[in-house]
Structure formats: structure tokens, C-alpha cells
């Protein structure tokens, strides 16, 4: 009864217009790129995305689009297929079926262009343990085509955004879990991409940092299309303009957090989540 109660295109369109008026021009000026067809198409377009591992279907015909200005919360129990979907979007896992486009670039046929427009935080925020924070971010900036002064500026900005300055010259392996996560986040934000895909960005952060990261996401939201996966449901209320719940690889709900909350008499997202995902499993 809950699934897809919402006609998806509509709200997206309204938000799209609201967000795009002057911002698109500003964004193009900031990024200096014209590759993305941001004017009319959504920045993230996923159609019938399916991933099978052997006979096991981890992601089952998932489709959605995310326009500029939207922060999509990607929810679901462990093993639901959130990370696998995000990996396909980042072009790491090859889909069994379906297509994914980032800023108009198909991640299969134009992978390098698609990844230029994308900031991706992989699950667990992997980084090279022997490198210093500055060395690691400098490497990412170099691969993204920044050199010399531009590179240093990018690295400094990313350090400042994520509060990493105090540990900038420390090897990543000596950092605490929360700081490691921030290094991964800094890497994803470094090039100020129009599309952000963050797999559990606040996992392991202390309450202050969680707040910081949420504020950061909210602040960036108007210019970007953002997908975050999370197990912290109050985060959905705090930052997301829309939430998708997936269970066993299928989308079981796709709506605004407020609309989702109304689905359960208690009005709590926890109860809605449980109702949606346990029903699916049964």
C-alpha cells in the first residue's frame, strides 16, 4: 500500500525550476563546464538498474532521477543493495542490466566524463593508509587535473570544509575513524562536483561532526544533486528533501520525508522503515 504513492516527476520538476533559475548559470560559472545538460535533465538518471551476483539479485530494476537541488536519502536494511546501487552509479560495479547517467554521461560508455562530474565517497571511506592527509588529497586533485597553485587551493579548501587542518600532515592510518571518514569526504568534495554520492557519510562521526557534515550538505544542496545512504533516520529529516527506501534490492517507497512519516500512525520514520522493510522480507 505504501510503495510509490507519489508521482515522482512532479515534485522533482517544481524543485528543479525553483533551484535552477539563476543557480544554473552561477553553477556553470563556478564549475566552468558545459558538459552537463543541467537545464532540463536531472543530474542523476537511473533506469532499470539491476545487479546479479550469480543467481542472487542484489539490486532489482531500480529507477530514479535526482535533479539539481535535491538531497536524496537512500535507506534500507543491511544488505538491501544501497552500496551496490551507488557503486554502479560511480561506475565501479558493472550493472547486469539497466543504465545510469551522471550529468548526462552514461557511466558505462563515457565513464571518465561521468566521474569528472561526480564526487563519490565509497562505503567505509577507503584511503591509502601510508599517505598523509595532504598527500592523499593532493593525489586526488592531481588525478582530477589540478596542478600547481590550483591544486594547493583545492586541497586547502577541502581541508577547511571538513575541519582536517589540524591533522593535515599526519599519515591517514594514524587517524581516528571519524577523521578517516572526513578524509574520504574531503576527497569527494575536492573538485566541487555537481553530483555527490556519499555512502554513509556520517558513520563514525561524533555528534558535533555529524552536525557539521549535515550543515555542509544542506549548504551545498541548492547547486548539486546529492545522494546519501544512511542508517540514521533523523538524518533524513535533517538534510534530505526526499527519501527512497529499498529492501531486498527493490524500491519500496519514494517520497518526501514528511509524506513518508504520515504512512504510520505514530508519525515516526523508524516505524515506517520497519513496516516497509519487514513486510518486504516476509
Amino acid at each position, binding site marked *: 500500500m505504501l510503495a510509490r504513492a507519489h508521482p515522482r516527476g512532479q515534485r522533482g520538476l517544481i524543485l528543479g525550476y525553483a533551484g535552477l533559475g539563476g543557480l544554473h548559470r552561477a553553477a556553470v560559472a563556478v564549475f566552468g563546464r558545459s558538459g552537463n545538460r543541467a537545464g532540463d535533465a536531472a543530474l542523476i538518471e537511473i533506469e532499470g538498474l539491476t545487479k546479479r551476483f550469480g543467481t542472487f539479485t542484489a539490486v532489482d530494476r531500480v529507477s530514479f532521477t535526482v535533479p539539481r537541488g535535491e538531497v536524496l536519502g537512500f535507506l534500507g536494511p543491511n544488505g538491501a543493495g544501497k552500496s551496490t546501487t551507488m*557503486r554502479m552509479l*560511480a*561506475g*565501479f*560495479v*558493472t550493472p547486469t542490466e539497466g543504465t545510469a547517467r551522471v550529468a548526462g554521461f552514461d557511466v558505462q560508455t563515457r*565513464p*571518465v*566524463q561521468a*566521474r*569528472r562530474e*561526480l564526487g*563519490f565517497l*565509497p562505503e*567505509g571511506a*577507503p*584511503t*591509502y*593508509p*601510508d*599517505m598523509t592527509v595532504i*598527500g592523499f588529497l593532493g*593525489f*586526488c586533485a*592531481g*588525478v*582530477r*587535473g589540478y*596542478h600547481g597553485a590550483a591544486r594547493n587551493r583545492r586541497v586547502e579548501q577541502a581541508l577547511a570544509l571538513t575541519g582536517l587542518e589540524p591533522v593535515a600532515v599526519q599519515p591517514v592510518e594514524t587517524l581516528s575513524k571519524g577523521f578517516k571518514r572526513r578524509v574520504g569526504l574531503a*576527497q569527494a568534495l575536492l573538485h566541487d562536483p555537481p553530483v555527490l554520492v556519499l555512502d554513509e557519510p556520517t558513520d563514525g562521526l561524533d555528534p558535533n561532526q555529524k552536525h557539521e557534515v549535515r550543515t555542509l550538505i544542506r549548504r551545498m544542496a541548492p547547486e548539486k544533486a546529492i545522494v546519501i545512504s544512511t542508517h540514521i533516520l533523523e538524518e533524513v529529516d535533517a538534510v534530505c528533501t526526499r527519501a527512497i527506501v529499498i529492501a531486498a534490492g527493490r524500491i519500496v517507497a519514494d517520497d518526501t520525508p514528511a509524506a513518508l512519516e504520515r504512512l504510520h500512525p505514530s508519525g515516526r520514520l523508524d516505524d515506517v522503515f520497519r513496516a516497509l522493510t519487514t513486510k518486504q522480507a516476509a
Partner: protein
Amino acid sequence: MRTTLVIARRELAGYFATPVASVFIVIFLVLLGALTFNLGNFLDRNQADLQPFFTFVPWVLLLLVPAVTMRLWAEERRSGTIELLLTLPVTQAQAVIGKFLAAWAFCAIALLLTFPIVITVNFLGRPDNGVIACGYLGAILVAGAFLSVGSALSALTKNQVIAFVLAVALCFVLAMASYPLVTDFLGAHLPAMTDVARRIGVLERFQDFTRGIVSLNDLIYFASVIVFFLFLNTVILEARRAD
């Protein structure tokens, strides 16, 4: 190209950020020195050349190059950084070549650190330094061939021990391909391959270099081996990167 070099630079710095580099280089030099002076009777021969030294170089490389390559992709996969690297805007080929170049530069550094033996032989006699330079060129090419083999095999598995053993085995076969050990075996079981095997032996090609002969044929041979295995590396990576 620039992206490839950024990757190579990071990799190379990675060797020196850990004890890997120093352990490798020390073992390489000690092993090579011991073999050359003891087994090779370097001094007793009373000849001003590096023949005994170059006899052992391929064998030491055969053992130590797979130790360098076993971690190339296996380690990225184990630590999950492969997901980071391959979702940056780089092609598989850039990533493969970047890693290969770093490993190759590292092996070249290790080889060039054997320079005291060149000084020794120049001090004791009048060697043909042109021949010695050819020998070094050949040794670097052998290292490149072994590295490309090891790198491709490292992409195949998460397990570094398996990557190492497979690489030693395949490098050994490639080294000995033109020798009776391999050709006799093939003659008995796969006669069609005998002729191919005779052409792809690394050791025989290397011996040309140690005699001071650099032929276009040999250069093309080493280039093709390296390109072939690096290509294989990208194919394996494409197929198995997320497993």
C-alpha cells in the same frame, strides 16, 4: 599521460613510505652479490667483465619481482582503495600503466644500485663498458617483462600469496621457454607450441644483451611481452574489479 604520471608518482612514493623498498633493495643487492662472488667466482675468473653477475640477474629478478607485483592490485582490492582509484576520472589503462611504471622505476633503481660492481671491475681491469651498459638495459627489460606478468596476475586475486606463486611460476616458464626443459615437454604434449616457445624465451633474449648485442628484434620482443601482459591486466581488471 599526466594522470598516468600522477598515479605512478604516488605508487613510487608508496614504496619508499614503507619498509618494502629498503628490504627489497637490501635483499636484492645481498643476494646478487653473494651469488656473483661465491657461485659465480667473479674474482677468480680474472676477466674484466660482468658475465657472472648478469648470469644471476634474471634469477634474482624472477624471485623478487613477483614480490613487488603481488601487492599491486591484490592490496588495493583488500584495502578497498581500488574502489576509490577506479572511481576517479581515470581509465583502466592509465591506472595499470601508472602502477607498472612505478614498479619498473623501482626495479630500475634497485638494478642501478648494483653500480659498485661496475666500479670494481673498472678498477681491476679494462672492461668493455658498452657491453655492460647493454647488459643493464637487458636486465631492465627482463624486469619489465616479469613485472607485467606479475601485475596481470595480481589483478586476478585478492590473495597476495597466490599472486606471488602464480607470478613466479609463469615468469619461470616464460624465462625458460626456449630451453629443452620447456620445449621437450611441449614437444611431447603440444608439438604445435614448440616453435612458439622457442621464440618467447626471456633468458635467451637477455643473453644477447649481455654479449653487447642490442637487436631491434629483441627490443620489439620485450615491448610486445610488456604490452601484451599489461593489456591482459586491464582486461582482468575490467572483469573482476568489484569481486
